[in-house]
């Protein structure tokens, strides 16, 4: 095994509230920390934990494909691992949820023979569940990156929750925009209208990144989405619009199984 190593940790969503003791310890003990968080003040907070904290923010550029940005971020992280350093990637929320960079940095580091692993964090999804008081177990839950949901033909279950991430850049195939406008969202609404009535109430959600910030929970009908304010932090939550139908055929089969076993036992 080579001497360099990589740990990708989650800082959670809210400064001071969510970081785990273990993640903090990794940050404090690292030779180099690469940080990508959703707030400049949170970035300053991480900077206080280690003498060598490097922001990944400068890699973003409007008009440049985010896929190129992500590959550059992975390359920057791996360069320090290859130099034999103890490297930590500190990412907001959970480093493995809707996060290409940490997954790929770990994968590539392992392929090169370095030790690499992930430490979980409190994700936007975790905050959303708590703040909105929803239980994904009660109806089932579907998660998609919004543009991916638009680009590919998917089967949507309207009896389950639907959560669409990165709705603020809905439909951007160039990956070069930081927000898309109402014309893109009208196409998203057209797609959603295939499954839901336009008056169906949905929620725009943004977790608080600072303890002095409020959480954004905005209820609106699907038809109002094109004119709503959104950015990369915004998540669209669509509650179920129908009730799940019982699978009578399968239930009958299960009952038959129980009866046949009871017959054997008696």
């Amino acid at each position: 095994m080579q001497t360099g190593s990589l740990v990708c940790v989650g800082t959670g969503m809210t400064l001071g509230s969510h970081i785990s003791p273990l993640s903090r310890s990794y940050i404090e003990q690292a030779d180099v920390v690469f940080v990508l968080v959703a707030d400049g003040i949170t970035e300053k907070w991480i900077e206080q934990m280690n003498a060598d904290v490097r922001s990944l923010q400068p890699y973003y550029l409007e008009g440049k494909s985010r896929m190129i940005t992500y590959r550059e971020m992975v390359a920057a992280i791996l360069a320090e691992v290859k130099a034999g350093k103890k490297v930590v990637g500190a990412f907001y929320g959970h480093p493995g949820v809707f996060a290409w960079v940490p997954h790929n940095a770990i994968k590539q580091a392992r392929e090169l023979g370095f030790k690499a692993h992930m430490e979980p964090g409190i994700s936007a999804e975790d905050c959303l569940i708590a703040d909105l008081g929803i239980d994904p177990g009660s109806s089932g839950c579907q998660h998609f990156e919004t543009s991916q949901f638009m680009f590919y033909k998917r089967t949507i279950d309207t009896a389950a929750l639907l959560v669409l991430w990165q709705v603020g850049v809905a439909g951007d195939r160039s990956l070069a925009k930081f927000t898309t406008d109402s014309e893109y969202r009208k196409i998203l609404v057209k797609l959603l209208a295939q499954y839901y009535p336009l008056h169906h109430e949905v929620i725009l959600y943004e977790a608080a990144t600072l303890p002095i910030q409020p959480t954004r929970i905005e209820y609106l009908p699907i038809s109002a989405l094109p004119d709503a304010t959104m950015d990369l932090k915004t998540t669209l939550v669509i509650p179920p619009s129908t009730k799940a139908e019982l699978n009578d055929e399968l239930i009958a089969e299960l009952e038959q199984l129980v009866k046949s076993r009871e017959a054997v036992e008696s």
Partner: protein
Amino acid sequence: MSKVISFMEKLGASSELKQLTESEVLELLKSECDLEASLFHSDVAHMLGARSNMVCGLVAAEEHDPEVEAEAAA
């Protein structure tokens, strides 16, 4: 400035402080950090010299590079 960050961290980690009103938090900020400050995010960020325009996407809908593909096609 590290006092303000420490204050934010304490605020985020305390169930007791979470119950305070905005004006009570402001009073505490003034007394602990010896600062006349507002709780507006932009004011705190400016005071700390923090970045104001943060991007936070970490995943793409597709793994292809549109720019690279466009160059290859040209």
